[in-house]
């Protein structure tokens, strides 16, 4: 009698513990299923359309949970017959930095700890054109422009021959057919070789988890552009890929109070950018490095 009782008691405990274990593991599996999916996610360039849709669904759910806002993530591919180019009128830039902060808002950049800026405006002494050794990054006068100085905003130059793409060991960054150099934030391993390779300080690193106030989140995003990033990956200007694919001007261009910024399709002979390349004297930074940037500086006056 004793034996059969302890038998059933042992069986009962065994069944109970197995059940609990199974339940726990199923439960933990469910909440780590997303983590496992994210870990195993392929590089964007290798994904099929169906896989991309799955990733977008997962990301939109994740952002909804994390930020409480419904994001709309686009994966719209590059148009054919398009090569984006940017123009910057150095005789009009007054160094007000409104472009820097418009970009921060539009592209969901981390505000503090770390503070990420895709655009950096440097102040140069008049008299020598681009002597970067006497550049001042932290000018903070009462008003701009200051006499005797000119201002030059620098951001990713979207090179046709990008050194950053060449050095990435995992192909996490590449040049799209429309000329924009993009980063797959979920594929980047954070080695920062591309930052070492960029001659223009176009790329920045999320040294910690980005801090963006929820009220200022921009929910119209592109997978390769301004969707919220994570810590320890590289990011950079994408010529507002979420805007330009729909024919809208980049955010930095729209906010500039003096109209110093120009944008357009280099392959369209009637575009504004082609007009200024043909009619103004344009130059690009560090042209001797043969990176072939698509960011044209010029002086209109």
């Amino acid at each position, binding site marked *: 009698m004793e034996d059969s009782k302890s038998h059933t008691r042992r069986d009962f405990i065994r069944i109970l513990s197995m059940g609990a274990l199974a339940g726990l593991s199923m439960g933990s599996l469910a909440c780590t299923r997303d983590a496992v999916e994210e870990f195993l996610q392929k590089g964007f360039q290798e994904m099929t359309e169906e896989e991309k849709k799955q990733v977008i669904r997962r990301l939109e759910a994740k952002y909804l949970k994390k930020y409480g806002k419904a994001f709309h993530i686009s994966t719209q591919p590059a148009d054919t017959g398009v090569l984006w180019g940017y123009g910057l009128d150095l005789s009009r830039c007054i160094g007000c930095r409104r472009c820097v902060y418009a970009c921060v808002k539009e592209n969901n950049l981390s505000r503090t700890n770390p503070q990420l800026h895709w655009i950096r405006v440097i102040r140069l002494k008049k008299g020598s054109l681009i002597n*970067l050794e006497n550049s001042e990054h932290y000018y903070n006068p009462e008003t701009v422009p200051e006499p005797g100085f000119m201002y030059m905003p620098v951001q990713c130059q979207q090179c046709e021959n990008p050194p950053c793409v060449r050095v990435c060991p995992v192909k996490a960054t590449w040049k799209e057919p429309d000329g924009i150099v993009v980063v797959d934030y979920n594929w980047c391993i954070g080695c920062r070789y591309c930052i070492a*390779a960029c001659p223009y300080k176009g790329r920045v690193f999320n040294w*910690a988890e980005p801090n963006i106030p929820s009220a200022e989140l921009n929910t119209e995003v592109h997978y390769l552009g301004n969707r919220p990033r994570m810590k320890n990956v590289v990011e950079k200007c994408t010529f507002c890929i979420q805007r330009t694919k729909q024919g809208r001007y980049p955010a930095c261009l729209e906010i500039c109070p003096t109209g110093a910024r120009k944008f357009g399709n280099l392959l369209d002979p009637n575009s504004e950018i082609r007009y200024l390349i043909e009619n103004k004297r344009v130059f690009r930074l560090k042209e001797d490095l043969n990176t072939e940037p698509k960011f044209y500086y010029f002086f209109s006056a």
Partner: protein
Amino acid sequence: MEAWRFFKKTVNMVFFGTRGYYLWCAFLLTIIGVAITFYIDQLDAGLIVTNMRDQVSWGLYIGNFTYLVGVAAAAVLLVIPAYIYHFDPIKEIVVLGELLAASAIIMALMFVLADLGRPDRFWHIIPFIGTLSFPKSLLAWDVIVLNGYLVLNTLVPIYILVKSYFGKEPNKKFVIPLVLLSIPLAVGIHTVTAFLYNGLAARPFWNASILAPRFLASAFCSGPALAIIIFQILRKTAGMKIKNEALFKISELIAYSMFINLFLLGAELFKEYYTGTIHLAPMEYLYQGLHGHNSLVPWIWSAMFMNITAFVIFLIPKTRENLITLNIGSLFIIVGVWIEKGLGLIVPGFIPDPLGEIYEYMPNITEIFVSLGIWAFGLLIFTLFMRIAIPIQRGDFIHSKYAKATIRRQYERIKP
């Protein structure tokens, strides 16, 4: 049964030893423990806990990585005399030299891992499973050659040791080609690492053709110098038979390498200072200070003093063959080359940054402790390698068929 005996005796050798051994291991394990806490913090909060920023995006970790690849490459210096010149006193330390190289490569790879922002995505870099960007990216080349060198430098010693354990001579037809292969591979790993920095037009401090030769020259100083110190320690603690002639021969080769290193440095200094273009800025920052920023200046001048003094010590046969000056010279080279190639190469490459900004980078406590932890781990691995390899080499740890009835008393430091 033999396997069980092997396992039991190995465990015995690793976990039991003299008081000095316990202290050494405890010391290393403490450092490793502290380093792990700092690394967990780094994983959790992100790389912001280091002092690296956008302006100087590589620092102490990559500096150590560069130095250690050089140390690993220099194992070749020990191999060449043994197998090409049949210099016998060196033969007995070749295996240990290769295990030193293997430990150095393990440390180098750990430094890369510590520096990675997303080590959880490490699988992206595995060929065929991830998307390794070979041959465009020099980092992809480095992944392949470093791991290949690691495999070679564990395969050959393990083969030789296994053969010795079974009381047999290693098959020269198998070993010699592999050893000969390791010579170009050693030159290869360090050249590829040099090309990593060399191929960046954005960093004129590194974009000089002289970088790869300088790397090799300084590697062939630091690696053997480390070997000289380590083998004297092993001679004392493990009763290894290493003749002084072997050490002196190595130091003579170091003298020649240091000469080339200093000559190439002089060539670099002339080119930048005499031409005086804007590209002088990083070098000026390093040797004199730039616009009031000069935190690396005392470091590089100490390194220069150490390197030149060591060169003189190794050049003059009298000082070379005196163990005290030999060791001072070796220590000078180990530290001097570390400064020159670690901090003194990586950091000035980023100063001034591509837009002319100067951010003075100095490592902080997190980076220092994680780096010390990795060094401690490498030394621990090397110690454990030695605990097993030396008795096998001596013939004390051998297959039971050949085991002698009595153990030679004078070499009782490590009891298998």
